């Protein structure tokens, strides 16, 4: 067994894929694009995270889960997690894998394009139909909206687009 194995940033990133959104357990904080920076000094690791929504009550849980996950690496000593507002988190930071994992959970990923008036469109998370209506722009959490699919007659949720263009 190696006594003084040095900290590997790659290994930290890999383990962060196990830190899931507490409210969407198919999606990791890497998928969501919340991880801005991972650095280390000796065996101390520092992670800089971007909050999705400022009032998101899951942030403290995510912080704790991040620390717990990284501490599983035997070569790591102290872990520090900091939330910063700059750069601002935007929904286009969600990765392609994140989009796939959101769909797997039944949530339509945020659209990448807006109309000129700021409105946006998503397809049904279940059947892919474009024949959908917005039921409530505000959903069960700050980051989601509720829509209705007129094709498969299901209510579904979509991740709200959050953009500096809005």
């Amino acid at each position, binding site marked *: 067994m190696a006594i003084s194995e040095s900290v590997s940033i790659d290994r930290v990133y890999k383990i962060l894929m196990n830190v899931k959104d507490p409210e969407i357990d198919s999606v990791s904080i890497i998928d969501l694009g919340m991880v801005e920076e991972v650095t280390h000094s000796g065996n101390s690791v520092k992670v800089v995270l971007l909050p999705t929504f400022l*009032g998101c009550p899951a942030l403290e849980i995510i912080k704790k889960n991040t620390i717990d996950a990284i501490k599983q690496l035997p070569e790591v000593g102290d872990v520090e997690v900091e939330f910063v507002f700059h750069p601002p988190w935007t929904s286009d930071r969600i990765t392609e894998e994140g989009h796939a994992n959101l769909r797997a959970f039944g949530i339509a990923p945020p659209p990448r394009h807006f109309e000129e008036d700021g409105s946006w469109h998503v397809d049904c998370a279940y059947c892919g139909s474009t024949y959908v209506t917005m039921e409530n722009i505000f959903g069960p959490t*700050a980051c989601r909206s509720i829509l209705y699919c007129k094709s498969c007659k299901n209510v579904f949720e979509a991740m709200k687009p959050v953009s500096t263009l809005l």
Partner: protein
Amino acid sequence: MSNIDNGVTEAAENKEAITSLLFQLADDDFLYAYRGSEWLGLAPHIEEDVASSSISQDSMGHAAMYYKLLEELGVGNADDLAHLRPAHERKNSIVTERVNGEGYYMETPNYDWAYQVVRSYFYTQAKKVKVESLCKSSYRPVAEAAVKVKMELYYHRLHWETWFKQLLSSTDVAKKKMNNAITLVMNDFGDMFSFGNQRQAIEKYKLIDSEEKLKENWIASIEPVFAALRLDVPPIPENPANNGRNGEHTVDLDEALLTLSEVYKVDPVASW
């Protein structure tokens, strides 16, 4: 605005002005979020319950972030700043502290939804104008935070504008209630764009646009909506009787703070 400088230097030079402005922004959102949260379970329908709660949660998040910026300036612990300051130290505008109507949340709440729609729409539009200006603030930490707030605010503004337009295009009863609400909200709107006794310093250091400029922008931003409804934008009162920015408040604030901080004061060192 130029002069975007290292945050620390700026803070040393005009800390009092920055502190005052941050308290105004934080206290506004703190009280606005609290009054919004009092609609939980009472909003006109279930979708609105969800929407109002989301907006209140976001707004409380914005307040928490401004209190955090104050903590970073060494003013005190963010939670304490939110919960333990007495009414005469609060810098929120009067309109954010007003009760939602007669009665109390726990017993016979006879709240006025028209009032909440008008207050929320006018306040959110004012917040948008300020936040857009703050994005260019000479104090970089607040400029960066404003970018984040602006994105979330997009949905709040859209929501309240929809309610505002729909109720004013509805029945005669709805129109009457809305017009009464507009009068009530505007009576308290005289301190919305005031910086209180820190005006000179706040404007001098270009922390945000001038009071006059913000007022102009607010009027310009709501004029098209009023025009479409064939209404005139009501005038913003000059020299308000109470200026919340200087700690002058109504009894509604005492009542709000008592309820808001009840749990926190039981055990301020508890970890929630």
